[in-house]
């Protein structure tokens, strides 16, 4: 389509350098989907930030109950962290396998990711159950309220991630590496890695800083 002369050079070329970078039109679906999900992740991180803020405000309010250094066990946290880091790695391997349509490595990568996620959840559940049984449940003090909410919120996200992971495996099993399924896989990988980032903040702020206090 050739264009007739147009009036004015007003907006697209403010500095009159003679080159207008034309917008190429709507982005391909893969980019649109991933970008939308990226924006969702940012909103999720803002939500976490509120729980972090609440934790920061309430961390000292132990109301006669235990403080962080009395209840945190660094060995467990270290194991949890290693689990999540490794699972991020295996999740990455699964993404590569998905992109190259390699079923074996995909299932393997996802399965290991799932197992690591479950180990993480088991350790966390164990920690929570232990605290509650000692009477240090979330209603004991504002500090414990904030602690359980923040860490539990991350745990809930991991649980949702595991459900999603299983759905992804089932989908690949039933339908193969279709484009739309690959798009979802990409979103899943983003989600899983983002949870890792949040965990870095959790173990640093809650467990490590907290056990010093």
């Amino acid at each position, binding site marked *: 389509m050739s264009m007739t002369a147009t009036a004015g050079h007003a907006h697209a070329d403010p500095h009159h350098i003679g080159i207008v970078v034309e917008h190429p039109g709507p982005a391909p679906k893969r980019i649109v989907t991933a970008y939308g999900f990226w924006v969702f992740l940012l909103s999720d991180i803002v939500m976490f930030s509120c729980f972090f803020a609440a934790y920061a405000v309430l961390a000292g309010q132990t109301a006669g109950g235990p403080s962080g250094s009395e209840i945190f066990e660094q060995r467990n946290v270290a194991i949890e962290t290693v689990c999540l880091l490794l699972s991020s790695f295996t999740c990455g391997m699964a993404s590569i396998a998905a992109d190259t349509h390699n079923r074996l490595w995909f299932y393997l990568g996802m399965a290991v990711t799932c197992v690591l996620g479950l180990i993480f959840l088991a350790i966390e559940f164990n920690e929570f159950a232990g605290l509650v049984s000692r009477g240090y449940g979330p209603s004991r003090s504002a500090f414990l309220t904030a602690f359980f909410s923040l860490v539990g919120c991350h745990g809930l996200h991991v649980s949702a991630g595991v459900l999603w992971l299983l759905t992804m495996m089932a989908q690949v099993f039933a339908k193969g590496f279709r484009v739309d399924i690959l798009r*979802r896989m990409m979103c899943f990988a983003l989600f899983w890695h983002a949870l890792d980032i949040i965990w870095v903040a959790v173990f640093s702020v809650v467990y490590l800083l907290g056990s010093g206090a």
Partner: protein
Amino acid sequence: MPAVRTVEPMMLGKLDWSAIPFDQPIPLIAGAVVLVGILGVLAWVVLRGHLPYLWDEWITSVDHKRIGVMYILLASVMLLRGGSDAIMMRIQQAVAYQSQGYLPPEHYNQIFSAHGTIMIFFVAMPFVIGLMNLVVPLQLGVRDVAFPTLNSVGFWLTATGALLVNISLVVGEFARTGWLAFPPLSELSYSPGVGVDYYAWSLQISGVGTLVAGINLVTTVLKLRTRGMNYLRMPMFCWTTLASNLLIVAAFPILTATLAMLLLDRYLGFHFFTNEAGGNVMMFMNLIWAWGHPEVYILVLPAFGIFSEVVSTFSGKALFGYRSMVLATMAICIISFMVWLHHFFTMGAGPDVNAIFGIASMIIAVPTGVKIYNWLFTMYGGRIRFATPMLWAVGFMVTFIIGGLTGVLVAVPPADFMLHNSMFLVAHFHNVIIGGVLFGAFAGFEYWFPKAFGFRLDERWGKMAFWFTFLGFYVTFLPLYVAGMLGMTRRLQHYDVAAWRPWMLVAAVGMAVLTIGVICQITQLVVSIRNREALRDRTGDPWDGRSLEWATSSPPPVFNFAFSPDVRGEDAYWDMKALARKQSLEHEGPEYHDIEMPRNSPTGFVCAFFASIMGFALIWHIWWMVILGGIGAFATFVVFAWRDHDEYVIPAAEVARIDGINLEERRSLVSMAGGV
């Protein structure tokens, strides 16, 4: 699970017959009227055989235009509900001088809480989101939003929230805590009923819907623009949509988190905001306003965008200072996250904190002022047509300036210590919300109605609606400034101060005038539908508009544009539309291509169905029902993820047929008028 603290063995949790207020006629009658209305409409739909049409074309539709219209419909209906609350409160304050008035205190408290909640979340929000949905893809020259099915989910979740709030009218009660449910009043110890739970779960569910809409629109603006639609060629409304939705995405999670904390306190005995065990009530104010202030800009920015479109169209000029407008919009987007403490200056953060937030609040008035000047300069020297949308725009400018100035006044901490929580504050925020957001919504409604439905609205009734609303607004709210100066605090169920009485009477009269305005608006709609043949818009461009939505027919075909407009003109506005119109008129048949469009999907409706069940069950502690709803929601999700065909193809021949009909009509008009 959460059953730890509830011991009811009953199947229905806390729900029993005592939840229905048989002894209170007002909510019962109101509920009955609403119920009869709903049943009547339903019966009519079923008997006339419209149900399949409704299901196929609206309920399961993922077309952004349809969803936009449904959002606006929801907002309009809720406006009537919130308006009824307002009338009741104005009458109460007019009569409750040295007496109890006609509303018992616990009922009055529910009314102002419901009024605020409904007006912000179920009127203002859906109205602006509806307009953005309807218009933005058209202005960007694309066929749909980024995530059409999610868009439908977002709408239906918003509707779920509205449904729950209205159920509370007859089953149980609504919160008595004000529209932000401040603890410790909203904690279990002081509000043991289900009112706060209705409030919180409605907002949680509709909040998810809003977040989805926000993500969708951000992605649409950033990633789906037609060829050549560079950022600085976007119409102003697209910019304000971007800013507003960025704010949604960044702020709504804060609301979600804050309400989640409140709910954890109430349901599981946590101690975020309790008085005991180290909880901190002031953290609630802090967090909720960290969402709350951005929220007011989420509402008003789209309205600014609408006014920009309207003012430049009806002045026949390009928007003055387009770039400064873009800059101002984005500046507001950022600064609005730095001022939230001005809502609780009196909480005692001390001079340092108060001063910094006070100054930041005043700074935000600067970009707003820039905008006002830009609109004025756009009008200056233009050939102004005072059609109804333009009347709303001019009315807005006058009104919003007053509201903005009083805003700057209360942003001065010492002044705010006097005016906080007074009627002056009530007048301020109605001044900006009615004068800004609602006037904007009405302007957008009048302006884009022909685009959505293919016929214009009656101008005579439209102008009457404007004048009554405009005058009614001033008569209602100016007296509240005075009452506030005389020391009247907000949320009073009755009072004994003689000096306040006259102002309350005047405000009640104003309310009556406002009501006439609303009636005119309804009449306008009815009259216009009756005369729709005479008012039909055959050109697709009834106002001589300046952006791409006017380049297609009214109403646009499902696919919006038979050919994606190719924007090459350097002028961001008018040329582009003229060009696109010319391109579409010049095209000849054989070049049509198949168009892929997203398939309809009941996902949104089904999701909302389960969300309603879950919400209701959570409110009443009916745990088995919660689990059932949760399983249903997950199943819906999996089924949705499992489907194989999410798009259908409109064959080129069909596109040609649809476009042919439109073109024929428009060409004949163009040749009659002798030019594009």
